[in-house]
């Protein structure tokens, strides 16, 4: 199965997690995280539009995945992120990690998420009934990288 995926269309987090787990030979722990489209600043979200930088996005995700595997000695790792127009409640992205022990699997998933938020070229725009606005990056997201 593909370990780095950038796609517009929907995905089934449960099915992907099952397939990923089935391939993780020797793993004693699998951790996954799914992000769901939700209202951020706005409370009348109609849609979320996600722009990305084709080519750089895939390269950045491959790099983040490789670093997570090397750093936490993961057996496997998976990153999937959608782009385009998404509706509230839609799964937007997921990461999954497989390791011998749970600490590495949890840490690897957190590392993937922290780097994905600040180093993969995606930009979210909230569309509401009254207009559209780009989501601002949080200082916390950049600060989160310092712990690694």
């Amino acid at each position, binding site marked *: 199965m593909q370990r780095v995926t950038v796609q517009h269309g929907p995905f089934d987090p449960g099915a992907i997690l099952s397939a990923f787990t089935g391939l993780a030979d020797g793993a004693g722990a699998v951790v996954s995280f799914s*992000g769901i489209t939700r209202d951020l600043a706005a409370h009348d979200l109609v849609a979320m539009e*996600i*722009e*990305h*930088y084709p*080519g*750089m996005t895939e*390269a*950045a995700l491959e790099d983040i995945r490789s670093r997570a595997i090397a750093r936490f000695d993961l057996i496997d790792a998976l990153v999937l*992120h959608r782009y385009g127009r998404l509706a509230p409640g839609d799964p937007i*992205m997921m990461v999954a990690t497989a390791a011998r022990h749970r600490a590495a699997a949890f840490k690897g998933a957190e590392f993937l*998420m922290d780097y*994905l*938020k*600040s*180093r*993969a*070229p*995606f*930009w*979210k*725009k909230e569309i509401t009934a009254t207009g559209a606005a*780009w*989501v*601002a*990056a949080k200082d916390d*997201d*950049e600060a989160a990288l310092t712990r690694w």
Partner: protein
Amino acid sequence: MKIEIRYFAWVRERVGAASETLETEAATIADLIAELSALSEGHRHAFSDPEAIRAALDQTLVDMDAPIAGAHEVAFFPPMTGG
């Protein structure tokens, strides 16, 4: 040298184009930003807050003092908000 410039998110919207080709002698990303800022009111607006701009050279994130000699593609965009 001739270089392909790409813009994303609100940088793209303010510039009013997703890409353009520029003939430039700029030595670094910062030099290139100064040159681009003078092109139009939209460019000036896009680059008015340097702290809010990130740059990639041939699809790799770089700092503002990175030399651009030999690059094919430079991209400018806001801080990323994936996840």
